[in-house]
């Protein structure tokens, strides 16, 4: 097991104390040793998003993906089961999957021709009898396979740690929300096209932190979009801040913008009629159906590196607002480098025109070329740059995460949030981001798999519940 230097462990101990005061040492955003430890303690343990079932609908369909930095093939086997197999032959370790996506009954290693089924099982090798004599037991020589893989509404997550809890337990109260947004569309959901990938000189936690409840940046960083009408408050009376921050335990977070039932405006995330009628009131609870109906947009994160969001935007101002739903992975590459993955998501069974327009809007706003995301990439890179400074490390420079703590907000914990989790209203608070870093610490500081926790437990455990100014 990777053994961190004592200095790193000391840093993590101090980090916990600092976090209780609403601060984060900037060093966390760019440090070689923390990066190595993250790969070892987070990305080989946590449930990581790999892709959507609609990308591999048929038996044999596969796509190449990464868990942390490590190459896996996400493949639907001939038995219909989906697996994540480590893309490395058991003989000499060569890559067995040649293309980025496709359909294959077999993966044949180019080096010596060992051949695996699309379930990962070794089925043959050239000259098997001559080469291996009596020891031809192939059962122990299959491709390494992620010990856990589960799919929720088609969203596939895997964990490399045999001790990982179930995906449901891992998701905690986030599950209710995922059921709400993706569990009520009768035909189901699908991704459009292939994911876009971009290399960025940023630490992966910069976007993860942003997606964990950073509404505050919208008003200034993205002001170009309001000035040009790409983003507007589509709800009429309500405003941008009229939403909830919902802590869901285990480091997950959900921002939810709602519109009151009596206010005219968009329903069901702003989808048009043709899409709205695909949502079924019986697939989940009534609360969830009503909840989706009055939700205008959301931004969520599943710890550590999965983000998703939906809002109506005007990318093409000759048209009305179009709902854009995108899902994101923040792949760690190096202390100061990541790969941003972007998929556009759409309900199945919609018109070609809507499918095209929601795709254009998604990519036009939240992708590498998106009118929002372009600008997000700038501070994500510059934070990473500053975090690598010797001076910042030497003086232990702390970032300010106090918004929403006692005396630091107008936002308050509310009891009437229509759903589980610990909810705050308005969104002018940074509890979700603190929660992300707290969960990060729990993973980084423990040799064992960190226990799942409700948001209260998590805050209490960190002594943060008391200090919070909320209700």
């Amino acid at each position, binding site marked *: 097991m990777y053994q961190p230097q004592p200095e790193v462990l000391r840093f993590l101990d101090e980090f916990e104390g600092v976090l209780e005061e609403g601060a984060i040492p900037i060093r966390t955003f760019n440090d070689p040793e923390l990066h190595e430890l993250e790969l070892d303690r987070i990305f080989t343990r946590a449930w990581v998003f790999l892709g959507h079932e609609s990308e591999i609908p048929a038996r044999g369909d596969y796509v190449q993906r990464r868990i942390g930095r490590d190459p896996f093939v996400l493949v639907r086997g001939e038995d219909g089961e989906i697996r994540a197999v480590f893309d490395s032959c058991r003989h000499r370790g060569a890559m067995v999957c040649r293309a980025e996506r496709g359909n294959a009954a077999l993966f044949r290693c180019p080096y010596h021709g060992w051949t695996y089924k699309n379930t990962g099982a070794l089925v043959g090798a050239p000259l098997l009898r001559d080469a291996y004599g009596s020891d031809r037991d192939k059962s122990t020589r299959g491709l390494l396979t992620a010990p856990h893989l589960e799919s929720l509404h088609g969203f596939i997550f895997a964990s490399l740690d045999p001790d990982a809890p179930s995906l449901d337990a891992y998701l905690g109260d986030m599950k209710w929300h995922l059921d709400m947004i993706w569990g009520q569309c009768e035909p189901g959901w699908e991704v459009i096209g*292939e994911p876009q990938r*971009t290399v960025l000189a940023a630490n992966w936690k910069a976007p993860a932190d942003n997606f964990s409840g950073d509404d505050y940046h919208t008003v200034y960083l993205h002001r170009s979009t309001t000035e040009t009408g790409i983003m507007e408050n589509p709800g009429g009376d309500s405003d941008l801040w009229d939403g909830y921050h919902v802590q869901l335990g285990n480091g997950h977070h959900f921002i939810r913008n709602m519109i009151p039932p009596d206010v005219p405006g968009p329903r069901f995330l702003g989808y048009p009629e043709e899409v709205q009628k695909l949502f079924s009131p019986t697939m989940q609870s009534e609360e969830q159906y009503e909840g989706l109906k009055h939700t205008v947009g959301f931004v969520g994160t599943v710890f550590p590196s999965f983000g998703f969001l939906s809002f109506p935007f005007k990318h093409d101002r000759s048209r009305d607002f179009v709902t854009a739903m995108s899902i994101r992975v923040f792949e760690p590459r190096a202390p100061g480098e990541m790969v941003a993955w972007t998929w556009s998501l759409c309900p199945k069974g919609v018109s070609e025109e809507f499918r095209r327009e929601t795709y254009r809007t998604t990519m036009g706003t939240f992708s*590498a070329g998106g009118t929002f995301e372009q600008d997000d990439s700038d501070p994500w890179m510059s934070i990473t740059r500053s975090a690598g400074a010797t001076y910042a490390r030497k003086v232990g420079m702390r970032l300010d995460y106090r918004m929403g703590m006692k005396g630091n907000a107008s936002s308050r914990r509310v009891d009437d949030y229509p759903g589980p989790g610990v909810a705050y209203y308005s969104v002018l608070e940074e509890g979700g981001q603190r929660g992300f870093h707290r969960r990060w610490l729990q993973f980084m500081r423990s040799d064992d798999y960190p226990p799942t926790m409700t948001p209260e437990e998590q805050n209490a455990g960190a002594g943060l519940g008391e200090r919070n100014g909320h209700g």
Partner: protein
Amino acid sequence: MNAVQAETERATTRIASGSQAYWRCVDFLVHEAEALDENRLDDWLAMLHPDIDYRAPIRVTRERTKGPGFSDQGYHFFENHESLNTRVERLETDYAWAEDPPSRTRRFITNFRVAAFEGGDLHVRSSLLVYRERLDETAPQFLVGEREDDLREVDGQLLLVRRRVLLDHSILMTPNLGVFL
């Protein structure tokens, strides 16, 4: 059907290199590159036809027998005149941070191949290398690929009516696509 293929099935006549039509196309693309490199984005917009169909398909690594791997559904850019107009307008606000200070870019356009469609539009294929750097970064960024462009004459001026930017990247090596291709 692949979006790239669809187009190339239209009947074309080859335009001789060095002919007047050839030079009109080359000049168009060279001056377009100049406008983009100099951040004269309004001048650039003026070079686009109202019906412009501007796309940069996502590319995936596929086996040799499967062709070049351009997506027929996924695009880095998938734009019409209004959305390009919005992008330019946004870049010209005071808040388009990714491109303010602007990248320093240089577009190299070479390997021109010109043809004429039956209807009269001109069809140009060219190689594109965009050099890009930002702020005081010293890791240069390259965007490389081929362009397939259709130019249409309106009132004696050529305008870009269709573009496919066929990048040679499966992962983009630039932090964002804040520049036009």
